[in-house]
């Protein structure tokens, strides 16, 4: 009751401050606050300034919005099947979702990370993490498609991921859930403290191809790793991870993991770790994890099971890992654009601790330790602290930065964003969010060169903000103008799934490189039909392969006979169009998977297992021309022993299929 009253008054206040003055445009003093709609307005046909890559949370997708309009451009399927695009249903994309557990059609994507060179966005790739079945994905920013997924062994859940180093040397993956490992996995849960361990993985990324591989893992105490950030500039070579549950509780964590006054931010010297790997300090571990790669030439993914990782144990590798005490279950641990400051955010704290990289180095040199935690040195809190932001709000979660030395921290409990100065830690401004903000995004905020201008808050609760839609309400983001001293709310826009972290990048860094078509000449799909002349139907035992073409507005072939019960029909459909934005679709009655959505010059395959005798329609699902509704055909299914020859045609009489090749 009290909460909703507060909310209502907040709404009224907001209406008053933002919308009311707009009714009096002649009042000069109100002009700045009356222009909210104008600031987020992008006229029809005009482009936005930024692409916003937003985690789709439990939808398993990554979504792409325009900023400042808040318009949704694309939902990129990453860890979840997407029948709209055939992702995870076509024969070509199924291997993308393969894991050591077999085919996993869903996951929970929390954090996008955009690749950088020298700490600045380079527009090549976006990475995303799977929080449930630990994986890291890479998305090609030319095609906006998921092109690689690597599973993380020795991990219980991959939350502390996929944060990247300055030149995208590494993408990290830290376990949220510690688990028992190796040959010691069937243990009592209450033996957590002795048997459960955490790991952080460093995945290297090839500079040219972007191809990933797990370079090494570090074996760590059984805490929960939450978020992470690489050092940059002067702190390049280091990585910082927040961790909670230093109590190492295995039940009722709500109470049991919040006993200690301080948990940790972990500092990893990854350059040192590289040296240890080189000098053979790592131990090879037998594991099994999937590595799935999509080939843009064959339009097909392959899944390979990898068998080995290199594990570094800090016990054998001195000076590689340190802990720094951080108040109250830290979530964010964010490095500022200079790399000097590391901002911790204790979810249950009422201060924001800011650590200094220079002081961390000095404390390490002076061995200014406060004992150790499970054998890993703990640096003295006061020795590494730059200072604390006092009374900023309740429940700091995550901090982003602008280019002018300001930090923006989200406060979940007090539903607000607080702007403060890194230099003297003074609070400059605060603004409410509606409601319970999680992560923030300032374009370029995690890089050495924040693009600034906007701040976007991703909220957990939207009661009273949108039209009701049953028990579940819209997920939501809020856009603030931060070009002035004061933050100004200028737009609410709904999002897909639960938005966690997001990044934003100037539109011109991506739009100019966007792939428009797949060149048909370069199509190396094994079942491509380059032109209608190559369209055909072939039988291989009980497999019937249809090499089909589509162009506005017909399929070749569109009449197929001679399929029998017990056959599996593979429709390999090649879209012969070579013009941007002319996809064709393909659907056949009774299919147990989904449709195909085939881009110009692409080939995709739908497997169809007819379950009854009859004649079945098939059609194009993507409205392609004035005669789109005519883009259809039939396939006939006869009894298993029937004597119907395999034939196919479009327009003319059926031609006999070539002899069965067995």
């Amino acid at each position: 009751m009290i909460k909703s009253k507060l909310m209502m008054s907040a709404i009224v206040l907001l209406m008053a401050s933002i919308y009311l003055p707009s009714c009096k445009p002649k009042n000069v003093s109100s002009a700045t606050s009356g222009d909210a709609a104008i600031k987020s307005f992008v006229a029809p046909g005009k482009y936005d300034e930024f692409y916003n890559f937003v985690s789709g949370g439990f939808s398993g997708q990554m979504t792409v919005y325009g900023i400042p309009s808040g318009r949704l451009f694309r939902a990129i399927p990453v860890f979840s099947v997407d029948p709209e695009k055939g992702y995870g249903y076509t024969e070509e994309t199924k291997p993308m979702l393969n894991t050591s557990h077999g085919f996993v059609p869903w996951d929970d994507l929390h954090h996008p990370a955009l690749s950088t060179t020298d700490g600045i966005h380079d527009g090549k790739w976006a990475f995303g993490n799977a929080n449930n079945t630990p994986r890291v994905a890479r998305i090609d920013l030319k095609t906006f498609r998921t092109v690689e997924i690597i599973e993380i062994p020795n991990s219980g859940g991959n939350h502390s991921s996929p944060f990247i180093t300055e030149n995208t040397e590494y993408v990290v993956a830290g376990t949220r859930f510690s688990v028992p490992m190796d040959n010691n996995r069937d243990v009592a849960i209450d033996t957590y403290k002795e048997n459960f361990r955490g790991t952080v993985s460093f995945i290297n990324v090839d500079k040219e191809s972007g191809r990933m591989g797990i370079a090494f893992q570090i074996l760590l105490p059984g805490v929960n790793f939450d978020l992470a950030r690489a050092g940059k500039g002067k702190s390049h070579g280091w990585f910082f991870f927040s961790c909670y549950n230093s109590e190492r509780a295995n039940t009722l964590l709500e109470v049991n993991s919040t006993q200690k006054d301080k948990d940790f931010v972990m500092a990893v010297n990854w350059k040192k770790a590289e040296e240890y790997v080189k000098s053979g300090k790592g131990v090879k571990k037998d594991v099994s994890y999937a590595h799935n790669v999509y080939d843009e030439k064959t339009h097909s993914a392959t899944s390979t099971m990898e068998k080995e990782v290199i594990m570094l144990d800090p016990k054998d590798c001195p000076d590689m890992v340190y802990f720094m005490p951080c108040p109250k279950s830290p979530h964010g641990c964010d490095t500022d654009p200079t790399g000097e400051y590391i901002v911790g955010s204790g979810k249950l704290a009422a201060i924001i601790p800011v650590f200094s990289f220079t002081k961390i180095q000095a404390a390490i040199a002076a061995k200014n330790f406060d004992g150790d935690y499970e054998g890993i040195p703990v640096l003295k809190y006061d020795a590494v602290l730059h200072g604390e932001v006092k009374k900023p709000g309740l429940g700091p979660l995550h901090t982003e930065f602008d280019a002018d030395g300001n930090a923006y921290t989200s406060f979940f409990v007090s539903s607000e964003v607080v702007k403060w100065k890194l230099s003297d830690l003074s609070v400059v401004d605060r603004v409410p969010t509606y409601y319970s903000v999680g992560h923030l995004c300032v374009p370029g905020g995690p890089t050495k060169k924040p693009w600034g201008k906007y701040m976007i808050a991703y909220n957990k609760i939207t009661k009273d903000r949108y039209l009701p839609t049953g028990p579940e309400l819209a997920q939501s983001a809020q856009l603030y103008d931060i070009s002035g001293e004061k933050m100004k709310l200028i737009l609410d826009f709904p999002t897909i799934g639960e938005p966690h972290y997001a990044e934003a990048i100037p539109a011109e860094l991506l739009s100019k490189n966007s792939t428009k078509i797949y060149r048909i000449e370069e199509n190396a799909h094994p079942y491509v039909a380059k032109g209608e002349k190559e369209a055909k139907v072939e039988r291989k035992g009980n497999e019937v392969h249809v090499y089909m073409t589509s162009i506005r507005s017909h399929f070749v072939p569109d009449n197929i006979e001679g399929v029998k019960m017990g056959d599996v029909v593979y429709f390999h459909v090649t879209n012969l169009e070579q013009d941007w934005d002319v996809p064709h679709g393909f659907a056949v009655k009774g299919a147990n998977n989904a449709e195909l959505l085939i881009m110009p010059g692409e080939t995709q395959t739908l497997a169809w297992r007819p379950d009854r005798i009859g004649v079945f329609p098939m059609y194009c699902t993507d409205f392609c021309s004035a005669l789109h509704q005519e883009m259809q055909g039939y396939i006939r299914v006869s009894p298993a022993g029937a004597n119907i020859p395999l034939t196919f045609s479009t327009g003319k009489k059926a031609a006999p299929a070539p002899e069965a090749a067995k």
Partner: protein
Amino acid sequence: MSRKIKNKITKASLLIVLGIAIYSCSTPIRQKNEEASGTASTENAAPAEVSTESKDAKGIGKFTKVELSPTLDVKMATIGKEVYDVKCASCHRLNDEKLVGPGWKDVTQRRTAEWVMNFSTNPDEMLDKDAIAKGMLEECLVRMPNQSLTDDDARSVYEYMRENDGVK
């Protein structure tokens, strides 16, 4: 909070939103429109017809003068056939039968090389502005797709059309 009060607040905010809707017609937004940068094309003016229906029309595009030899360039025509099979055959027969688009028989008598090559490399502008292309769209009702032919592809395809029309 009672439902009634809530409703009142909602109504009040509705009125306020209406306020902004009216305000939004005034100049600031229009200025924003004019200033906006990084844009897609928003050409709205009716396209002017710049080509005639004459048999000598050259169409609209980069090809203004194509040199043709009296005899066939066999090599070029062979490449043209390869391009035809992949990118054109779905819609155009080699005889006079209309499929999606017209059959190609005698096209080299009906159209200039420049017109054919401009149309095959620049179909969208031609379909919007060229009188012949527009007339054909009215008959066929399917816009010829841009099949991303290179200039050389377009020339080779034209040579293949010549071969199809009996040039030796």
